[in-house]
């Protein structure tokens, strides 16, 4: 197994009754890359993400993270190993301010025992890194606002900051641009571009413009199987992919 391989999925299977949502799936994510996962609805993208984050257990196959088998590691364990995820449906702490949201994530990375009884508000140890992250995702100035009062796009940015707060070595982003307007999408694309080379990212996204401009490599998922992996150009020109997924739309572009 090559040294720059961060995540390897090997023959992964997940069945829901007769439906094979993940069907002998193989996937390799290299350190530092933005790896996009595309596929039509029902291809099993979210199911795969859940198995990678530990929220769902596969029926067969293996998941290797840095060469270690994490197939059956719990979600908190994986988070501590350095796998963070954001959600297709916004998942934040609505009654907390932006700063409190991110500081909570920071503290989850840091807190081991003793620090837990320190006063959270005004604690520079967690608030300084949190403020940096808030700036990084483009939410400076909004740190005092309640998360529930943010616009949808801002909540997605906040979610990104929370995932980054774990200082993950692998970031799982499940449709970060879902429900965003063009302007918000553009901000998010810039944000993700800025992460290239710093955080290895596995990105599930329906916005093809974003995917093809961001991704170093793309894997196409159809019916729970990876039918192709390659650079954006390779994927664009792969006949099997065109047939299965991109269809007429790709011909036109």
């Amino acid at each position, binding site marked *: 197994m090559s040294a720059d391989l961060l995540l390897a999925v090997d023959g992964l299977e997940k069945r829901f009754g007769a439906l094979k949502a993940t069907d002998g799936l193989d996937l390799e994510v290299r350190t530092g890359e933005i790896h996009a996962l595309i596929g039509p609805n029902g291809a099993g993208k979210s199911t795969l993400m859940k198995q990678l984050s530990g929220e769902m257990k596969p029926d067969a196959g293996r998941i290797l993270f840095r060469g270690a088998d994490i197939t059956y590691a719990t979600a908190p364990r994986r988070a501590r190993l350095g796998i963070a995820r954001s959600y297709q449906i916004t998942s934040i702490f609505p009654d907390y301010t932006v700063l409190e949201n991110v500081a*909570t994530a920071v503290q989850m990375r840091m807190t081991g025992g003793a620090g837990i009884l320190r006063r*959270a508000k005004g604690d520079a140890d967690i608030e300084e890194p949190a403020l940096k992250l808030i700036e990084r995702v483009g939410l400076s100035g909004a740190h005092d606002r309640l998360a529930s009062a943010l616009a949808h796009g801002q909540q997605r940015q906040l979610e990104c900051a929370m995932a980054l707060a774990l200082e993950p070595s692998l970031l799982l982003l499940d449709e970060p641009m879902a429900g965003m307007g063009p302007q918000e999408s553009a901000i998010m694309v810039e944000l993700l571009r800025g992460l290239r080379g710093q955080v290895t990212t596995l990105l599930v996204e329906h916005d093809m413009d974003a995917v093809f401009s961001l991704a170093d490599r793309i894997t196409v998922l159809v019916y729970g199987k990876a039918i192709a992996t390659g650079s954006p150009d390779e994927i664009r020109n792969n006949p099997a992919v065109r047939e299965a997924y991109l269809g007429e739309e790709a011909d036109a572009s």
Partner: protein
Amino acid sequence: MPDGFLRIVTLALVVLALFFPLLAEAGGSAYLVPSASRILIYALAAVSLNLLVGYTGLVSLGHAAYLGVGAYVVGILSFHAVEGSTIFGLPGTVEGLVSIPLAILFSALVALVLGALCLRTSGIYFIMITLAFAQMMFFITVSLERYGGDDGLFMYAGPNRLGPLDLSSEWTFFYVCLAVLFAFLLFCRYLVGTRFGRALGAIRQNEARMITLGCNVYRYKLAIFVIAGAGAGLAGALLANQASYVSPDVLHWTRSGELLFMVILGGSGTLLGPVFGAVAFLLLEEYLPVLFDAAGLELLKEHWRIVFGPLLIIVMLFNRRGLYGLLAGRPRQ
């Protein structure tokens, strides 16, 4: 910190509490002091329950169990002291400095065991299983024949001593309760302000997110469950001293319901809400019948709960943060 109207009410309550025995005596109503102590004790229990319900989002319908454990520890120790017998090879005691910490310890232990089991579930199942275990504790006390079983246990030695303090003095006892409640409120304020408290609030708002942030939510919940149980145990220990009597009544499931009512009525998830809730709940319970009697409404005097129930519902309908919310006005931002 509370502001505006809320601050005035809070300040008024604090002043009233500080001088209550004096005022009651001056007004010729010294008999009210023990009742006031009882309110303070229930406020303490409600504040401890609020740590679960309000701050962590764990609706426990079995909190009276820990109140009961605390009360029974004090009662049983007093029983053995009077009888001159031993329990687990140790003599009984009427010294509060021993019995009250033991009451806290035992209720914390019971909370640790029951919590470890209950917290495997969530939502409606959590409510039901806390209720079930509390019922189990209730029937255990009923079956304690030696300690009075159904009839309860009289503490013939009267209330405990507390070091140099004599808790049989109504005034002393009142101020002890007030001090304990105040100290516990300060403790809760500190606790919810820590990283631990921040994490609890996050669990309440979005448990799934906390898990994927790497939080072992089970441990956090168990920790606060034990702390809340210990707080209720402390209240129970005081309750036993207040009445010099403990009975399975303290653990009855309706008691758990009342505590929950106090929390929600007062405003769950706020520091002082449960105190307001306990005061309002117990005063209404006491004085609604009296009020209807004075107004000559015989039927309502008899069936005062017909008014009591809707009144509670109305407060909660108008403001989800209960009395605290009504007094404080708009929530932050």
